[in-house]
């Protein structure tokens, strides 16, 4: 009897201490995770951006050389602006395509719904590069699209502009983004109970009004998150524009990469990267603010 009591005592004492240990371990893991995946990479970019080059060497003195290079040469501003416009365009198109899809899927019965979601997400199982190569096969001079167009007699000569130009980059970026845009929009739509939509109709809203006054505002956070996903993806991607882009109209990702390769000017690359990061953060904050103005469902 005595032993059980002492056991119980130690156990009751031990358990909160055990909880604290677990909590400490969890917090430690979180901290480590943050340091390894956020603080270190970001810190390295930040530090590099304010260093400078002396010949082939990085000089670790505080300097604004890289930023003044960027400001002095209009080419960087031009490329940044083009990348920004490009990313906005891709994000808009991706949302415009994903929204109706998500809406239709979200109003299906749950069995069909889950199958359709898997179907929409299917492209994710295909490697990123595989999808880019698929577009090359589809859009090339001897590609499927051109073959069909020529067979239909729409054109006699294969259309070269389909591939290796802005169009193919847009198509691929939109296609890559759609699952990522679809998911948050779908989740926000799926969470809207049928009852709320019915209730709006019951209270006098036409189907159109019910959509604009109830469904759209309630899915705004999903739209915002989806838009941000597509935007970030399109803004930062350099592989797609490199593999599918044309001879002109380089985007910022490629410029940054070249600073770390042959140019060996990490500070300039980092400074450009920092600007990209800043643009991204600002866009994300703005878009999410807009989205959050409409309250999320409980």
């Amino acid at each position, binding site marked *: 009897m005595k032993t059980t009591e002492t056991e119980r005592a130690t156990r009751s004492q031990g358990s909160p201490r055990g909880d604290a240990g677990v909590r400490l371990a969890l917090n430690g893991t979180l901290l480590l995770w943050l340091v390894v995946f956020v603080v270190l990479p970001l810190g390295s970019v930040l530090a590099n951006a304010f260093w400078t080059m002396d010949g082939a060497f990085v000089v670790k003195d505080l300097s604004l050389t890289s930023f003044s290079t960027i400001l002095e040469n209009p080419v960087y501003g031009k490329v940044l602006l083009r990348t920004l416009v490009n990313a906005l365009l891709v994000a808009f198109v991706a949302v415009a395509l994903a929204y109706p899809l998500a809406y239709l899927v979200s109003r299906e019965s749950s069995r069909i719904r889950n199958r359709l979601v898997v179907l929409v997400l299917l492209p994710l199982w295909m490697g990123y590069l595989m999808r880019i190569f698929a577009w090359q096969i589809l859009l*090339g001079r*001897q590609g499927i699209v051109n073959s069909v167009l020529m067979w239909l007699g729409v054109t006699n000569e294969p259309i*070269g502009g389909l591939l290796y130009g802005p169009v193919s980059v847009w198509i691929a970026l939109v296609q890559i983004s759609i699952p990522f845009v679809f998911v948050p929009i779908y989740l926000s739509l799926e969470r809207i109970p049928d009852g709320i939509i019915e209730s709006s109709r019951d209270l006098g809203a036409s189907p159109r009004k019910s959509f604009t006054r109830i469904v759209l505002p309630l899915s705004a956070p999903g739209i915002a998150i989806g838009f941000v996903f597509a935007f970030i993806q399109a803004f930062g991607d350099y592989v797609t524009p490199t593999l599918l882009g044309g001879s002109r109209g380089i985007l910022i990702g490629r410029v940054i990469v*070249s600073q770390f390769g*042959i*140019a060996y000017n990490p500070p300039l690359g980092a400074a450009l990267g920092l600007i990209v990061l800043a643009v991204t953060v600002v866009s994300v904050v703005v878009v999410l603010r807009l989205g959050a103005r409409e309250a999320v469902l409980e």
Partner: protein
Amino acid sequence: MIHRFFRNRKLRAVALVMAFALVLTACSSATESGSPESPTGQLRLLAWAGYDDPSWISEFEQQYDAEVVTTYVGSVDEMFAKVRTQGENFDIVFPDSSSIARYVETGLLRPLDRSRLPNLKNMLPFWQNQNYYEVGGDMYAVPFTGGATPIIYNATLIPDPEASWGLLWNKEYAGKLGMLDDSNNSVVITALYLGLDDPFNLSDADFELVKQSLVEQSALIRKYITGEDEEANLLASGEILAAPEIEPGIADELNAEGGEYVFAELFPKEGALAWVDNMVIPDGSPNPDLAYAFLNFALTSTVQAGLVSKYSFLPVIDVQAFVSDETKAKVANLAEFIDQLQLLQAPEDPERRVQIWTEVRAGS
């Protein structure tokens, strides 16, 4: 330089698997050096995958009762960084010709004693006459192997082109030409095409000319090429008809696949680009005697004939007598154009070249 890691498709797969396994073992076991006359022990290489091909490494290991351990690198920068931070871990490193100056300036290399390199006499005159491996009168590097960047073209649709870089500026093939997506190679090629004095030391006026010419060319370019597979696909599918051959052997591979078109290589009269990888001994090398032994060994037909027949690389000694009949023709061909090769050197201002390239690619 083009992504070095993607030099050869076969190497890539090997490298990925091996790199991991070997990085783990690379930093183990201590080294014992033998006497200068018969050096032995461990030889540590910092190399591109494939440079330690077992066909010659095992022979070296037997001959010297040595153990060769290789650390693989994926990029020029990685190689430089490794030597800078842990040079004492390597006996031989394989930098390219344009990087030698950078290594020497940083004090990472020890000068080589020519008297201990009797096999230097095996080198073809072209390599003996180079001076990039000498800095301040001292020799720092021995050429290991190289590769040229000729023009690869669709011989079915362009039957008999003039041997000139002008093919890549020919308006007749507008929208069907490829160019390398890389500032240095592009600027050097353009400088060669324009006949400028020294493609690695351009004046302001030269830069202006090069830029104009590149902008002009960009209107004719279908795709700027970033890798070997991409170039092969672009050519095979007829998207492009001509481009600088990013890696040796693409034409051979495509022809072997036997597609719709026949492909050929062309060495422009203005000079073809060539890269060269060299052997250097880091200042802190733990086993320099064995390193010297390897330098001499690398200048024998065992290694050089292997590099030619396995990877279609350029040999630095005459290997005519040691290769198969099939490869012989290729080697004979090499002898013909070797004097036209323009070895890549350190450019005067890489930043400026990137700047120009960015402006060209940004378009208007």
